[in-house]
Structures are given as structure tokens and as C-alpha cells.
């Protein structure tokens, strides 16, 4: 046998091949459903918001990595942030504001904390909170769905106190489900969000625990408060938040029980803000708050290792 050099590498010598970038691009794929709904209902301008947001997040990530002298990996995480941010913005938001928000999302919320895997807050939600503080008027300017071409008509979002629905409940639920209603670009069609979410569940990308605990808590609390349960589930950012934001690996707990606690906490906060707070919608801040206490949850909510109880018993 001819002499040849052999390598050594740490085991295991098999890899499942589920890479970070594959996961991110599957999320991007799942987000295409709500994105398509947003473009369908709010027209080409919504598409340009998405394009600017994604371009700005990716470029910001590239620039920050260069400045920090780190390798830039096109792992798709910046694309996910860009998409998510666009989907939670009003459809008439000026593009320069979108760019400012995107830069903030990546440069401050994500990279300043160390980049992917180290950030405390969901970058897209952090960016949105920043924009709400800076551009309060534009961030709350809602229009009714116009599709392509027609002029935008100012409207109230379903959750705001000035929202009036002149029709029966069934048609309201139908419009909320399909997305033919005022709101952020990507959060109008509960149905398409659900399709994207189910795709992520089916492919094992996300666990059911956070969405189920989150939406379930909102349902139970609104029921207890004698509110319209179906309306609260379908309206606003709950569906998008529960399936795509609260399930962000980095900023949510790692254990199964921790995920349930996270979902319940976000649900309680969302209902409190919607019902008793000064804002019409509470999904964004609820998730950001739960992001902040995620390290605490991970610190104290542990799994019982195999063989532990037995040891305690034999010692005692």
C-alpha cells in the first residue's frame, strides 16, 4: 500500500448535516407564505419594504463582520431578521426608516452582543421597538389592504380602540384569517402564517411548545376576561410572533419546560398589554420581555439527568 498521510479529527465521525444555514433558509422558505400575503394585500410597496429590509440587514451584517475582523458567513440569519422586520412594519413605512431599523437590528441588537448565538433580544423585534420609539407616527399609520395599484386608505388595526367592524363576526374572522385587513405587512393573514408555522413544525425546525403555550395562554386569558377569543388569536401579531419570533432559538429557553414557561409568560403579558396597557398590541414587547428573562429561565429550569434521583436516594 502506498504511503499516505492520514488525518485525525475528533469524533463523532458522522454528521447529520443539519447546518445553521440550512435551518435559516428553511425559516426563510416558511416566511415566504406570510410575505406573499403581505405583497398580495399591500402591493408592490410592501415588496420594496421587504427588499430594502433584507438588503440592509445582510449588508449591515457584512459591514459589522468586516469591522470586527470576523469571517462573514452567509448563514441566512440576517435574511431571516430582514424578512421578519419587514413583516412587522406598517405597509406605508418610508424606505429610509426601514433601512435605519434594519441597521439597528443587526448592528446593535445582534452584533453588539456578539452576533448570532449571543444576542439577548430577537433582532427584528428589537429593531421594531427602536423604530416605534423613533418614528411613532409612521409606525402606527395603518392602511386597509389595497392590493396592487389602488390608493391606500387610512384605517385602524383591528386591535386599536378606534377599530369599527361593520359586518357580522364570521366575515371579520374570515378577513382576519385570510389577511384582508389593516395591519403590518406580514401579520394580516393568520392562515398563511399558520401554513408557514406548520411547515417549521413538520420539518422539526421549531418545537410546538412555545406557540401552543403562547397562543393557548392568550386564548384562556381572553376567555376568562370575556373577550372574543378567536378575534384575539387571529388579530395583530400573535400568530407571527408565536410561530416565528418567540421560537427564535437564540433568544428563547433551551429546555422543554423552559419553552412552556416562556410561552405562558409571553401570553400573559400580551393579554395584559392588549387589555390594560396603553398600546393596542402587545406581542412585540411581550416577547422582548421574555427574551430578557430567558437566561434566567435557562439558569433555573433544568432537566433531571439520568441517574440523578437514584443517587440522591442512595446517599440519603
Amino acid at each position, binding site marked *: *500500500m502506498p504511503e*499516505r*498521510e*492520514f*488525518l*485525525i*479529527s*475528533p*469524533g*463523532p*465521525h*458522522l*454528521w*447529520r448535516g*443539519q*447546518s*445553521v444555514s*440550512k*435551518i435559516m433558509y428553511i425559516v426563510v422558505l416558511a416566511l415566504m407564505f406570510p410575505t406573499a400575503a403581505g405583497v398580495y394585500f399591500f402591493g408592490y410597496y410592501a415588496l420594496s419594504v421587504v427588499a430594502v429590509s433584507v438588503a440592509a440587514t445582510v449588508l449591515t451584517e457584512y459591514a459589522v463582520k468586516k469591522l470586527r475582523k470576523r469571517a462573514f*458567513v452567509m*448563514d441566512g440569519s440576517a435574511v431571516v431578521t430582514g424578512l421578519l422586520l419587514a413583516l412587522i412594519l406598517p405597509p406605508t413605512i418610508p424606505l429610509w426608516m426601514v433601512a435605519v431599523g434594519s441597521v439597528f437590528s443587526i448592528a446593535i441588537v445582534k452584533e453588539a452582543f*456578539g*452576533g*448570532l*448565538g*449571543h444576542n439577548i433580544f430577537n433582532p427584528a423585534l428589537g429593531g421594531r421597538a427602536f423604530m416605534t420609539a423613533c418614528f411613532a407616527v409612521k409606525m402606527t399609520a395603518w392602511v386597509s389592504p389595497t392590493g396592487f395599484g389602488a390608493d391606500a386608505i387610512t384605517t385602524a388595526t383591528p386591535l386599536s380602540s378606534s377599530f369599527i367592524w361593520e359586518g357580522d363576526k364570521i366575515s371579520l374572522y374570515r378577513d382576519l384569517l385570510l389577511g384582508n385587513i389593516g395591519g403590518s405587512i406580514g401579520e394580516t393573514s393568520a392562515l398563511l402564517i399558520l401554513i408557514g408555522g406548520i411547515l417549521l413544525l413538520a420539518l422539526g425546525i421549531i*418545537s410546538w411548545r412555545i406557540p401552543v403555550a403562547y397562543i393557548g395562554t392568550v386564548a384562556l386569558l381572553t376567555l376568562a376576561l370575556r373577550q372574543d377569543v378567536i378575534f384575539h388569536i387571529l388579530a395583530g401579531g400573535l400568530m407571527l410572533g408565536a410561530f416565528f419570533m418567540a421560537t427564535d*432559538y*437564540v433568544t*428563547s429557553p*433551551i*429546555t422543554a419546560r423552559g419553552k412552556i414557561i416562556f410561552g405562558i409568560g409571553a401570553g400573559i403579558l400580551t393579554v395584559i398589554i392588549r387589555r390594560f396597557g396603553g398600546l393596542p398590541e402587545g406581542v412585540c414587547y411581550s416577547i422582548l420581555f421574555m427574551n430578557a428573562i430567558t437566561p434566567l429561565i435557562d439558569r433555573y429550569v*433544568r*432537566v*433531571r*439527568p*439520568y*441517574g*440523578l*434521583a*437514584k*443517587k440522591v436516594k*442512595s446517599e440519603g
Partner: protein
Amino acid sequence: MPESKLTARSPIEPIPLPEKVIIPLHQNIGAPCETMVKRGDKVLTAQKIGDSERFVNAPVHATVSGEISATTMVVNPPTGQPVAALVITSDGADRWVELEAPGEPEALSVKEILGRIREAGIVGLGGATFPTHVKLSPPEGKKIDTVILNGCECEPYITSDHRVMLEYGEKVLSGLNIIRKVLSPDTIYIAIEDNKPDAIDHLEKLIVAMGFKEDFKIIPLKSKYPMGAEKTLIGTILDREVPIGGLPLDVGVVVHNVSTVKAIHDAIFEGKPFVERVVTVTGAVKNPKNLLVRLGTPLKSLIEYCGGIDGKASEVILGGPMMGISQPDLDFPVTKGTSCVLVKESTLIREQDCISCGRCLEACPMHLIPTTLAKYAKAGRYDDCKEAYIDDCFECGACAYTCPANIPIVQYIKVAKSELIKRAANK
């Protein structure tokens, strides 16, 4: 996980005797052996050439007849420690020592049986190389109620135990019957993963034919790595948990690998010391095979017998792909714990930062948080590793296999464990 059992249908082939063998003096997890021979000595096949006074030890034997031509040092990658080894140049005649008279287990006392097992140099052949006579000598007061014969072979690629069950089934069962005599447990299970239906069928028939129907019970198990790990096996079959840092005997169980049990048969019924074993040679070799190999045969000879390395494979792994260790030196010999030689292309992928996806938690059979252990280990926070139950980890690699960030979690854990051992030793 792909099973890649390329050699499941390849009958065991004995390979020609090597011109020389290298016998490391430390081939068990216990104490090393002292050499009993010197350079120039003539030795016979199966002659004992290394032994120790220590209890946790198994002697080593010459595996060919010939002359001790050199004493050397070999480096075994798992420890990185050099180990003394004896080189025997074969005379080609394969003359055996006079073997101990074959015994009937019924006529032998437990003490005599254990003595023979020890003298035969038998260790756990699943890879742990724990001396078998020690495992069969539970301390006073520890009652063993269950014996599990482990025929899971859950690692991808490896088929040596599978073939041993098919081709030496009778020997495996009568070896198991010897264990029954030694430990007199209430129950004896034979655990086999359901990806080996032929082995399950075969042993089922043999159990009936050999009259063991009342004694042995086959448990087909789901093929899911790491099913064959002792702790997983005990948890799955008996719903018992081995305490952290404890042994199966703490919960009244002893687990033995099928090849070990076959070696017990050979020692008792044939008086034969453990000098050869079945090794799967697989992956990127021209003709993957299951080989019957004398211990001490250089890896090179096995690979050459299988037609050499195919393509541009760059890594040789001793053991399976999950828990096996890279061995760049092909002059290194087959040792007692070598169940598989896997040749494959090296896959070096850049490690990324953890994204806390939680896949490693789901994969961990010990319900640990592997990524946290790896983070602590990376930061040198070894006491935190200890508090996070690092001792519970048996390094199956299921976490690193599934990790999307390709973090060598097991490697970090191994480093932390060895640091903790060093610290404990310095105290």
C-alpha cells in the same frame, strides 16, 4: 442516522497469519501488564507473555508462534500515552502452547471459572475493555438479579457482533450459560436491535434447540443509537437508572457483549485464551469484510486484505463512526477492544457558535444539556461542568452528530473530564 451496515451479509473470513504482531502490554481499562518475556525469547501461540498482580487487569498472550524480536512503544490516540509493546516475529508455524484441558462448567467451581476467564485475558469486547472476571465478581452484598447479553451493536457500520451471533450462536449461548452459573441471576435477557432480524431468528431457534427456553429471553429493541450503551439498555429494558458515576451492578444488573461471551465459551470449553477476534473492516475499502484476526495484527494488513483504500479517504477510525478514534498510524495493531476499522473521507467543517437550538438536549440519552457542558469546558469552567453532571456523559456523540453548528461537543467534554481527573489526582 444511516446504518451503513455494509458487511451485514459478509461471512467472517480468517485472514492469513501476519509476519509479525505487536502486542501492547496495556489492553484493558485497569492496570498494565508486566512483560514475562525478553527479546530473543521463543514463544508459542496463546502463551501468556504479560501479566499483573493487580485484580483489575487481564493478561496478554502471544498470538502467533515465533520470537520476541523487539520491545517497542506504541501510542494509542485515546490517551495519547505511550504504551510498552512486544513485537513477535512469526515463525509461520503457528504452534500453540498446550491448552488447559477443556472444562465442563458443571464440574468447575465459580472460582475456577473466574480464574480461567482471567487467565484467558478476556475483557469487555464492545470496546470498554473492562476485565471480564472483575465484572463477574460483584462485591459482597451486591445481588445481581439481571444479566443482559448485549447484541445491539448500535453504531453504524459495525457488524462484528452481528456475524458472531449468526456464526457462533451456539458458543454465545453456552458462554451465556456459564455466566448464569457464575452470577445465578433471576433473569437473563438477550438484547438485539430490530435491524438484525436474522440474528434474532437464529438465536431464538438455538435457544429452543439447546434447551435454554426457560432461561434466556430475547428482547428485540428499536434500532436507535445509542441503544447498545449499558445505561440506555438498562433504562430501556428494565426502566432502571444507573446512578451518576455508578455501575450497572449498583442496580443489580450486569451487561456483557456477545463477543465477550463467545470468548468466555472458548476459554472454558476449549481452554483457549483470547488471541483472536472478529473485526469489521469497512467504509472506503475496496471490499468491506468481517475478518477473524489475531490480536496484534497491524491495521495495514487488514486494510490490504480488503483490497486497500478506495478513493481519497483520509482517515482511519478504530471503532465505529460515533465513538471511534482516528488512528493515523497504520502500523498500530488490532487490540482486544478493536471491533471495527473504518476508513472514510475526513469531514472537517468549521465550528460555529451555538444557536441554542436544543437539538443536543433532545439527542442526549442521559438528559444532560450538552451545549452547556461544552460552553463551560471551552471556558475552562471545569467545576461548573462537574455541577452540570459531566460524569453522567458516556461520550456517545449523539449531541455532536445532530449539532447544526458542528460543535465538537464530545471533544470539549473529554478535555474537561481529563482536567477534572488531573485535578482530583493532584488533591
